[in-house]
């Protein structure tokens, strides 16, 4: 159902949508996400903002200083001027007083008072009662200022009375009389007031404008950096095809972005190369291994499983299997390091994996007379590759059981701190001497004691590679006695 809009409605709606469009255009220029950690506070933590802040504060202080200096000098000049007039008047009047006496002085004062102008005079007696002069009474609320006094007085202008400021000096006369000679300094007083209100406002306004300007500048810079950071995080998370956006400004950020993109191009090419090499190495090594095994198996079949030669060939097949196991482990390590499997990360519940691995290895431990304890704690979850993590844990548990003598204990535990999720396997075997701990994670390293037990020497290498794959750390400690191997996973990284 359509309705007929009146003209005003149409124009209002158009205006509204025009306004909305304008707002959208403006705000799209500022594409900063404030949902990232730190939110608005990030603006003030930038270098740009800090520089602007320092500059603004310095500028404000110096501007204020300058204004204050000007003010102070001006005031002093004005005061000096009026003080000189007052002194001259007093000098003149006292001379007259000495010549003409009190009466003559009073006459003089009267005539000068009539004069108009800025001069203010008051002759008062010992009780401060006014005798002659153009001031109504002795000033109350007097402020002293270097021998001079300042006070307020009232001046009648027609029907209105005005409260004005004056500055003057007193001169004692005979008989307790006092002469007050002053100048109206109301204009100076107003200017003084102007300055004292201006200065704080100047300071405040400069700071405010500076802060706003600094904020805008750092916002802009953050937005540019943010887009670079966001893209980088996506790339780290596995999407190597992304590139950092380049604006048309041709400024330093664009140069940075262009260089980053060139680096990424190179990395992507290298990764592709690694992937191709891994695949072809896999294929080229596995094919002959496959054929080798096939031949041996065929020969065993044809000889008949009971003959002595079949025994020799079976031993050969076992060696081949050992070769294959080593090769597979090496390949897995290479893959984990190349990060080619990064696409299949999923949330993993470590306690569930630990339970499964524990359940698989439990009977084996029991057979050996080794006590196997699993202490699950909550459901610590990380983003990772489930089978790699399972394999790593299995390797650690396998090693632990293998090297722990009967009567010992293997303990699998996990814990969660605000920053990390830890998975640990501790045994009461011979442990690894501190000087060997960094060596054992290298490929093919086997310590003297275990040279003859079954194993490829790659178990810990794989665990280390899996840890690297997950940005985690493999820590080998003394379990006193025994070895305590901990994989420390950071909480899901890869957010802004």
């Amino acid at each position: 159902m359509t309705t007929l809009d009146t003209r005003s409605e149409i124009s209002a709606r158009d205006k509204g949508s025009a306004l909305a469009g304008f707002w959208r255009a403006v705000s799209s220029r500022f594409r900063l996400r404030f949902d990232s950690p730190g939110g608005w506070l990030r603006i003030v933590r930038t270098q740009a903002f800090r520089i602007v802040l320092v500059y603004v504060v310095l500028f404000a202080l110096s501007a204020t200083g300058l204004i204050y200096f000007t003010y102070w000098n001006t005031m002093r000049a004005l005061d000096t001027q009026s003080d000189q007039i007052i002194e001259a008047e007093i000098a003149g009047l006292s001379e007259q007083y000495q010549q003409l006496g009190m009466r003559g002085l009073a006459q003089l004062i009267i005539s000068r008072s009539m004069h108009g102008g800025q001069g203010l005079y008051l002759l008062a007696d010992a009780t401060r009662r006014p005798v002659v002069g153009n001031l109504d009474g002795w000033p109350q609320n007097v402020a002293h200022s270097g021998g001079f006094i300042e006070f307020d007085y009232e001046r009648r202008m027609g029907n209105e009375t005005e409260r004005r400021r004056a500055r003057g000096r007193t001169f004692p006369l005979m008989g307790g009389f006092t002469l007050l000679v002053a100048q109206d300094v109301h204009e100076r007083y107003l200017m003084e007031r102007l300055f004292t209100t201006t200065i704080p406002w100047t300071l405040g306004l400069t700071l405010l404008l500076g802060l706003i300007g600094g904020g805008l500048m750092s916002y802009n810079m953050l937005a540019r950096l943010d887009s670079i950071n966001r893209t980088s995080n996506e790339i780290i998370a596995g999407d190597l095809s992304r590139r950092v956006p380049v604006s048309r400004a041709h400024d330093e950020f664009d140069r940075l972005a262009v260089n980053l993109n060139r680096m990424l191009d190179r990395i992507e090419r290298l990764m592709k190369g690694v992937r191709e090499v891994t695949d072809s190495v896999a294929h080229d090594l596995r094919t002959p291994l496959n054929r080798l095994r096939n031949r041996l198996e065929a020969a065993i079949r044809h000889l008949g499983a009971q003959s002595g030669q079949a025994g020799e060939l079976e031993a050969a097949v076992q060696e081949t299997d050992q070769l294959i196991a080593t090769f597979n482990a090496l390949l897995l390590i290479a893959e984990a390091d190349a990060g080619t499997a990064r696409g299949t990360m999923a949330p993993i519940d470590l306690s569930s994996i630990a339970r499964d691995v524990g359940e698989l290895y439990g009977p084996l431990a029991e057979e050996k007379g080794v006590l196997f304890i699993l202490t699950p704690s909550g459901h610590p979850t990380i983003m990772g590759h489930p089978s790699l993590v399972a394999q790593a844990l299995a390797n650690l548990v396998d090693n632990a059981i293998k090297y722990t003598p009967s009567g010992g204990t293997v303990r699998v535990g996990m814990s969660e701190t605000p920053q990390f999720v830890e998975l640990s396997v501790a045994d009461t075997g011979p442990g690894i001497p501190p000087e060997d701990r960094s060596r054992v994670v290298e490929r093919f390293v086997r310590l003297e004691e275990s040279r003859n037990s079954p194993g490829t020497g790659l178990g810990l290498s794989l665990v280390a590679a899996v840890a690297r794959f997950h940005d985690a750390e493999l820590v080998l400690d003394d379990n006193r006695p025994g070895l305590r191997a901990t994989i420390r996973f950071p909480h899901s990284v890869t957010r802004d």
Partner: protein
Amino acid sequence: MRILVVEDDLEAQRYLVNGLKEAGHVVDDAADGDIGLTLALSRPYDVAIIDRMLPKLDGLNVVAEMREHGNATPVLFLSALSEVDERVKGLKAGGDDYLTKPYAFVELLARLDALMRRRSPAAVKTKLQVGDLDLDLLTRTATRGEVAIDLQPREFRLLEYLMRHAGQVVTRTMLLESVWEYHFDPQTNVIDVHVSRLRAKIDKGFDTPLLHTVRGAGYMIRARP
């Protein structure tokens, strides 16, 4: 059984085909994806063994095409490709099982057996029986003769898998994948320990051993020794 082998490495193909024929199967072979697909779609097979890397049409695409044409022949992928995520890709494309080269021939045979049996599913079973050993899948209990056997949940699953493949060789890798759902290589034979415990429970004290070790291959459960 009729088996189709699609493998471009001629030597590997020869051993595979010969081995299968010696095991009593009827085997057709192809050396590239196009021919393999044509054969798969034009003749009935009980199972197809397809290599991932093939000239002309790659293994994944062969199977994808087969499935698109409504062909439901069970497919076992053979692959020399780096393992970690390739298995998932293979299964997603429509494959039923995945074996990496190099493989043990007995492993291959065991898995083929399992695939072929899967092809003809009987009505959903609630009971399994081998000799005088009965497994009730609903109550999750096992009895041999008159004696009730106490089994842990995992032991039950292990026994169930063996009994579903009664008379067939079941390899350690198959057990690891199906009963524990793990796709990695345990360095020591953890599976053996689980199986020997199970054997102690179901065979010890009874006349006829049902759980047999097949040397060099794996295990088998069957009534006759």
